[in-house]
């Protein structure tokens, strides 16, 4: 459930009822409701579901997670080179 896609906010405006914006998904742009993320700014990343920005995408966390993945095998391989080959 809950297909959510990350995109970058490129425009913010009020459509007379609520806070709206345009979000860029790698070259395609869709209008999105920003009402639930009043603090988001142009340039921020968000995750969009059925036309709504539901959460801020924290770029710092993303980098940390990827760094963790990068480190995972490497660290243990360094610590335990033999075992790592056995379980492969």
């Amino acid at each position, binding site marked *: *459930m*809950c*297909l*959510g*896609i*990350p995109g*970058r906010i490129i425009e913010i405006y009020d459509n007379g*009822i*609520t806070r709206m914006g345009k979000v860029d*998904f*790698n070259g395609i742009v869709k209008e999105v*409701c920003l*009402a*639930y*993320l*009043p603090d988001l700014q142009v340039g921020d*990343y968000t*995750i969009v*579901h*059925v*036309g*709504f920005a*539901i*959460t801020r*995408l*924290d*770029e710092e*966390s*993303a980098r*940390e*997670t*990827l760094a963790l*993945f*990068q480190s*995972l*095998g*490497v660290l*243990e391989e360094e610590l335990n080179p033999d*075992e*790592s080959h056995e*379980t*492969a």
Partner: protein
Amino acid sequence: MKYLDEFRDPALARRLFEQIRRITTRHWAIMEVCGGQTHSIIRNGIDQLLPPEIELIHGPGCPVCVTPLEIIDKALAIAALPEVIFCSFGDMLRVPGSRKDLFRVKSEGGDVRVVYSPLDAVKLAQQHPDRQVVFFAIGFETTAPANAMAVYQAARLGLKNFSMLVSHVLVPPAISAIMESPNNRVQGFLAAGHVCSVMGIEEYRSLVETYRVPIVVTGFEPLDVLEGIRRAILQLEQGRAELDNAYERAVRPEGNVAAKQMLADVFTVTDRTWRGIGRIPRSGWRLSDRYAEFDAEFRFNVHDIQTSESPLCRSGEVLQGLLKPNQCPAFGKECTPRTPLGATMVSSEGACAAYYQYGRFVPTSTIGVAS
């Protein structure tokens, strides 16, 4: 795409598979609660690359699958009314009610429209003041804020021709129900990342404590799913049962505060019947009394709804993780995505449909295309 491609990286995926293999010493049954995760697992062939000890049980996390037959039959009856423009997310059009589906209602003259966002339905109501616009509001906690906003805007705009057929469901009561089941085999959960990005993670803490079961908040890309599995296995192997957040880039502990406020205003917790599972107490949302006038069930007096589920279908067991889709005797025979008997074959995220679409062990004869 940025923040998608990085989490699909094959080299990193290999590392995660290796890690998981390394730490897995025995059989573990883990449920990914969310259909989006099931989709990702099958779409990427993750299950086939995991060590055989790890059994992934596909959870009831597809709102299309679990929407009760009775509500679908009501949707079909409302959509057939001449004054109604019936708006739905695309996937619901193929969900069979007792006798037909929305595609058939459309072919019989019903004005059924696919919308991308519930706000599109509000727009339609503004554009067609002479028609009744009904939005089929299904979904878990992720979709609820969008649907709530639609009602809120309709109220602010004073629209008398907008209403919603609400069938919202909630994840935590479903996890409780699974854990309470006498047949339960699930030993750890991957919680749905986007649900948590709205609701936060605190309500899962009591589940972890009550059932002493590891719950890892997990994203949807291959690396996210693998990391969720890795952390769940790690807890299981180490005998821990903790709440862990493996989707930190999208999930704050407190969730989305503004959205939760809106949800508290627009919706009220209610008992809900899950298709194929049964009634789960306090497992859904209905419109709060303040917004009762927007409830399509009250606005349209849809009588004589006779619901009848196929006796062959075992989607209830599938949804509870008691049965693999391809263990159902009807799978790929009486039941295919074209002739679905159960909700889980209907949605492309349903466990049965996902097995049928992406599974390796589908009998060739059921995929045949006429020459």
